[in-house]
């Protein structure tokens, strides 16, 4: 509810004008007092979340930024202020640049692939009549398997000679080759993620009315046309949401690297978050690790901004009655 609604807005003919003004002022005061009271309640309700959010998200971001301005590694007993040197060094750090580009590649490849597969799965699941349960299970189960467990399983598949793929060709060494390793890892990421995204699409599909399809069918549209003309456009809001989720996931999923490649060969499969782990906890270069953290947070914030832009538009479209 808005303050403006509580305030008498129209002047009533024939009444004393000053009286009306007084009424207006009291109304405004009351409304404002009411809103302050509400604000207090709202902030109280929000405070538990807010405290934890501040302590474990906002404060650490600020702390990372401050730390990134210091030289703080194993060679320094006390952190030394050095401005933006850590950032300048990152631009010269080959490993960091590799991680950066790898991350971009992971995002560019896994996001569309996962989304494409997820839509296909969801539409397929909706279309079949029997065995829905098995189909759901078959597609969605990777979501419920821990990443480290998934990495173990995929190691059984990729390990040359003994692995599952070894039965097809014992000389395939996908994880051992700098050029193929990241693709092998991405295949696993897509497998892991497509089912999760499928959930959102199944949810989105329930929102599309049957009548629409029937009307289009009468007009003689084939199943592909049905998808192109009805399903896909109507799933657009879901797609945008899922796109953001998948994009952030591309920057957050790293557990498998610990098991599968440790970022290698060289840095061929390394990504930013795992590099933060290595720099921060292996090399103890807190300054540098903080700088990478800030870069990663920056990247994620950019994605957030895209989402806001989208949300604002959606709000404009949807919430006008």
């Amino acid at each position, binding site marked *: 509810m808005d303050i403006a609604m509580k305030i008498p807005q129209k002047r009533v003919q024939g009444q004393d004008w000053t009286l009306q003004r007084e009424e207006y002022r009291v109304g405004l005061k009351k409304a404002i007092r009411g809103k302050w009271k509400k*604000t207090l309640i709202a902030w109280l309700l*929000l405070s538990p979340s807010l405290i934890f959010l501040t302590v474990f998200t906002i404060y650490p971001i600020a702390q990372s930024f401050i730390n990134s301005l210091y030289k703080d590694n194993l060679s320094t007993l006390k952190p030394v202020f050095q401005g933006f040197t850590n950032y300048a060094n990152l631009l010269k750090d080959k490993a960091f640049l590799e991680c950066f580009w790898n991350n971009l590649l992971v995002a560019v490849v896994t996001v569309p692939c996962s989304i494409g597969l997820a839509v296909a799965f969801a539409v397929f699941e909706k279309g079949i009549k029997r065995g829905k349960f098995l189909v759901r299970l078959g597609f969605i189960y990777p979501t419920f398997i821990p990443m480290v467990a998934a990495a173990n*399983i995929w190691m059984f598949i990729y390990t040359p000679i003994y692995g599952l793929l070894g039965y097809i060709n014992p000389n395939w060494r996908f994880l051992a080759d700098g050029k193929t390793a990241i693709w092998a890892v991405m295949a696993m990421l897509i*497998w892991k993620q497509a089912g999760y995204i499928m959930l959102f699409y199944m949810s989105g599909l329930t929102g599309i009315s049957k009548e629409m399809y029937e009307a289009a069918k009468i007009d003689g549209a084939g199943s592909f046309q049905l998808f192109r003309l009805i399903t896909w456009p109507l799933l657009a809001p879901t797609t945008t949401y899922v796109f953001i989720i998948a994009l952030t996931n591309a920057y957050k999923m790293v557990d498998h690297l610990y098991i599968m490649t440790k970022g290698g060969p060289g840095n061929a499969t390394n990504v930013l978050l795992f590099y933060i782990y290595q720099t921060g906890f292996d090399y103890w270069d807190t300054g540098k690790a903080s700088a990478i953290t800030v870069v990663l947070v920056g990247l994620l914030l950019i994605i957030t901004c895209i989402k806001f832009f989208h949300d604002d538009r959606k709000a404009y479209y949807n919430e006008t009655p």
Partner: protein
Amino acid sequence: MNSFTQKHTLQWKKVGTALLKGLMFLMLFINAIPLLWVIRTAFISQDKALDLFAVGLPTLDNFKRVLAAAPFGKYYGNTLFITIGILLVQLVFITLAGYAFARIDFYGSRLLFILFLSQLMIAPEVLILPNYSLMVKLGLNDHLLGIMLPFFASAMGTLIVRQTIKTIPTELEEAARVDGANLPQILGKVYVPLLLPAYLSFGMISAAFQWNNFLWPLVMTDSVSKRPLSLGLAMFAMSYETGAQWSDVSAATFLVCVPLLALFIIFQRQFMDSFMHSGIK
């Protein structure tokens, strides 16, 4: 277009659809291979594990060895404690926060909303380094509580509750207010029952996330007795030889995966229903 060609195209369409269906079933099979493979290796005797086509009676020997070799019971306990503890706190927090965002018009709402949304993107696991330093300062490293704290506030949960509450007519709340109910009563009696489906779908997501969580517990725990399942599994798998002992690693992997999969299978229908209707889009 004469009727002959029309018939023809219709047939082609049928063939196309059938092909597409076949392709999807193939994909389904490929997608399922990792699970089938791990189940098969977990239950086959160790000497046959490396031979893809070996057949043998299923055995529980692998599981016996795994359970004797590592304290998986302890790992289970830790993960359950972490997962459920976090979830219970989250449910309280997101209900309060979601209600505030959905129903109250207050100063700073937009700013706070943006703040919440930012957590959706910059999840605590991105901030491992500063959060770790913070936990060390608080003396909470190598404590289960330390692993849990950063996840108590959940932007995603808040959003789900907010969306769900928005779909509930305000008349219910107003009627309760007329009956003299105060805010806690309204929340508890009016909203919580209606939010149960939302809780279920969020609960599944939250539980899956915590069950999966690895990097954060890895840096946070020092002692074996604080390790959650994911970490215990990783350590277990790394101490084993490639090839020769895969049946053991498979058995351990299977043990770790089973509870969530079972929950999903049991509550599949409810989960799907609530997921579809709780405003997660």
